[in-house]
């Protein structure tokens, strides 16, 4: 049972009059001290996968290569996620600050922001702030350059290795792993790639210390997280909340009184039905999320919701690996056929087995996570799939 209550937090968007001092002081600290803070804080990646940020930094710092990179993954494409846009609009300096600190720790001279194609409108302002930031770095006497690269609208380019391919001017297709980015990332050089939000938390950990951060959240999910809340809610928007709350508390706060399901983690996440709200923890020990929380009330057809997701994946698969490219097509065709009565309800089992295969044999996270929403929606709303 969750023991945390829903609590709003104000770290990410907090006003920061002492920003420059924090940056200057952090850049003066030893790499070991910074690494220790980030490791001790328990911070895990906020893009969704939740890899411990300190470890990523540590592994990359241990590589002997001269040339290393920090990449900020701002290719925010998960359906229902819009928090990175807000972070970049409101506190870009903190993002850049996180990148510079990371650059110091791992020994990188260049950082890149890979900005979602649809966020082109943010670019001019970001570049202006970047000039200011570069001036500050110069004042501090730290040699680090940040560049902004635009994505072109492909969801798959949010996958880190496809993102590197895209940055290198190639078609955005995920690479084989290993090697991981900490060894061979952008231009096949050791690279830390962090989500926008993760970088801000890294910066804030340097500011408030690991201890303060650790006090928030649970053993598996330290700290707070920015949520993008949408769907059937009277108060849709961006909220920073402590991790570890129950979905029941969440729905009580944000629901419209008739919530029948919450899609946690966007199209690639899990659908939790009402009867499981109470026992579902939002965090890495329960249902993790990159921030997307979509609420559905009883007026919604979960078949339509699922079909929408599967169509999304069918279109956004890069197409290189078989399970994902063809599997997504088949899942879509399959649920349509069951709905129309062209296939019996038993075909849903066949499709679930197919989704299993996609989960365990697709090349990257995209194909591997299609099963999440497919399974959780089909299992929990099977009657809506058939009738």
């Amino acid at each position: 049972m969750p023991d945390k209550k829903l609590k709003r937090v104000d770290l990410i968007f907090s006003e920061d009059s002492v920003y420059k001092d924090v940056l200057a002081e952090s850049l003066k600290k030893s790499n070991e001290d910074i690494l220790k803070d980030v490791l001790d804080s328990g911070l895990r990646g906020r893009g969704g996968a939740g890899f411990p940020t300190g470890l990523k930094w540590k592994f990359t710092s241990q590589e002997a290569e001269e040339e290393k990179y920090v990449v900020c993954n701002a290719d925010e494409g998960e359906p229902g996620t819009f928090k990175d846009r807000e972070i970049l609009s409101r506190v870009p300096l903190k993002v850049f600050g996180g990148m510079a600190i990371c650059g110091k720790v791992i020994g990188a001279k260049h950082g890149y922001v890979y900005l979602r194609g649809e966020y082109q409108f943010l670019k001019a302002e970001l570049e202006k702030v970047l000039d200011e930031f570069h001036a500050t770095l110069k004042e501090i006497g730290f040699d680090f350059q940040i560049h902004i690269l635009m994505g072109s609208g492909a969801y798959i380019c949010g996958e880190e290795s496809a993102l590197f391919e895209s940055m290198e001017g190639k078609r955005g297709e995920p690479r084989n792993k290993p090697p991981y980015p900490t060894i061979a990332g952008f231009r096949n050089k050791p690279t830390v790639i962090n989500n926008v939000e993760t970088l801000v938390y890294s910066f804030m950990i340097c500011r408030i210390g690991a201890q303060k951060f650790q006090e928030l959240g649970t053993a598996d999910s330290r700290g707070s997280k920015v949520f993008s809340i949408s769907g059937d809610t009277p108060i849709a928007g961006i909220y920073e909340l402590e991790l570890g709350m129950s979905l029941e508390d969440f729905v009580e706060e944000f629901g419209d009184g008739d919530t029948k399901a919450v899609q946690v983690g966007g199209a690639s996440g899990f659908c939790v039905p009402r009867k499981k709200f109470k026992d579902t923890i939002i965090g890495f020990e329960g249902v993790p999320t990159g921030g997307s929380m979509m609420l559905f009330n009883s007026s919604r057809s979960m078949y339509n919701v699922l079909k929408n997701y599967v169509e999304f994946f069918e279109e956004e698969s890069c197409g290189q690996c078989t399970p994902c490219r063809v599997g997504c097509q088949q899942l879509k065709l399959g649920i349509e056929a069951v709905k129309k009565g062209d296939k019996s309800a038993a075909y849903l089992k066949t499709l679930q087995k197919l989704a299993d295969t996609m989960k365990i044999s697709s090349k990257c996270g995209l194909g591997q996570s299609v099963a999440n929403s497919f399974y959780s929606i089909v299992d929990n709303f099977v009657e809506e799939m058939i009738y």
Partner: protein
Amino acid sequence: MANTVNLKIDGIDVSVEAGKTVLDAAKELNIHIPTLCYHEDLCVAGNCRVCVVEQEGARNLVASCAMPAQEGMIIHTNTHKVRNARRHVVELLLSEHNADCTKCYKNKNCELQDLASEMVINEHMFTDLVPIKNYTKDQQSPSIIKDDSRCIRCQRCVRTCSELQHVSALGVAYKGDHMKISTFFENPMYDVVCTNCGQCVNRCPTGALIEKNYIDQVWDAIYDKDKHVIVQTAPATRIALGEDLGMEPGEIVTGKMAASLRRLGFDSVLDTDFTADLTIMEEGTELLTRLKKALVDKDSSVKVPMFTSCSPGWIKFIEHQYPEYLENLSTCKSPQQMFGALAKTYYAQKKGLDPSKIVSVSIMPCTAKKFEAARPEMRDSGYQDVDLGITTRELAVMIKQAGMDFEKLPDEGFDSIMGDSTGAAVIFGATGGVMEAALRTAYELITGREVPFENLDITPVRGMEGVREASIKLEGLLPEWSFLEGVELKTAVAHGLTNAHQIMEAIKKGEANYHFVEVMGCPGGCIGGGGQPIPTTPEIRKKRAEAIYREDTGMKIRKSHENPEVAQIYKEFLGEPLGHKSHELLHTHYTKRKRH
């Protein structure tokens, strides 16, 4: 040992060199893991997912072709999970594949079909829901047919075209379920930078990329009583044809090939090797003439280095990519086209035949030869010089159609005239062979002595290194060639167009200072040509090359200028190398083409 890793596959311990994959390790143990997108010649893609295996401790299955073997790994290749996943993958591929196998040219020579058969997939469970898609079948190229309905998107062709050939005529377009293998703006293959080399055809696991076959046209010609059908066979066909007819790579089947052609009903079975020798006479003379003009007369209009011109894939490559170097190409036609031009002139005269009644067929290890034969400038005899170019593979199909037991055929010789050849001609089939043959003749021509290599084997130009260099100091020359005295003749050999690109870039940057460069479009030279039996691997190409050199060693005459029929044709018909008649029939010009 630091450089090996130990792992366990299906309960058996195995040690492999660090850097090897799980698939490599399984091979060591003779454990067969099915693959589709994997190809020994290409970088690992890991995209078909047929080769997945279970790794203890890993959440998901791993692609064995892409997963490095690691210390202490425990791998299972045949679990319930693995079998289910592989079966699903093959079923999914079949769901988007046009599986009317009996209508497919690759029927019984298809890796997807093999896998479906191995997995006993007798019901295509995902096929019924797939809507009919409008696939394109591009048949406009004279060399290659691209049928998207049979494509499984493994990208072997894409990797071949970019990595091995530096051509990138094929690429990936669109995403999701629309993802396809395409060309620049989806233009037809004949209208892009495709060199027709057919390396993609050699590596396509299904029937999505095949040669345009002219089997029926050849049969029609043979059955036409009114026609005199002659056939020429390229050097590299005789060491590979057997592979498609139940024999092992590296077996020399020259005699059986001649016998089979005669039994198929060709009126005269002749040899491209004859014109390979003739090429050496023309090209060798051209080289020496160029050197004199460039080095002695300081004539800046004469371009050095001179490039060989036998490989039509290379020719189209340079026409597209380096048109500023067209004048460096030897003006000599390829042996196929020299043969074609002479067949309907010299041969027709000697045999008293009406050239309009001659059908000239060529058996080539090459798909680009089909394009070459169709070039508008290749009509110097007054007719299309070569009417039908077919590949080694197509010949094998015809032999099977005719019901011959190829292995049991007797060894027969070629007919005359234009059937005699030398060891120098046969090595045209391997990378470095034209260079070696040219040096054997040119060196002797100007010094009066044999090349200073043991047993005439010019080993520095042999081998499978992508680019090889060799130089010979020209000393003690005959008086008429004394202007070349002391020159260090610098040569280079490249095979596969990526290596050609490398050499061209070096020349462009002024980093390379060659006199004579041999380029073959395909890896290994013609032995690895796009029309040769499938599969092709480095090992198979090595065996074919060894066979070529064995064939050379076994020949009575090993220098082109000693071919008696060559001497005869100069005496009776051509006059002298680079003479008027030669110029008319044996030399050509090139066309600048667009770069995309």
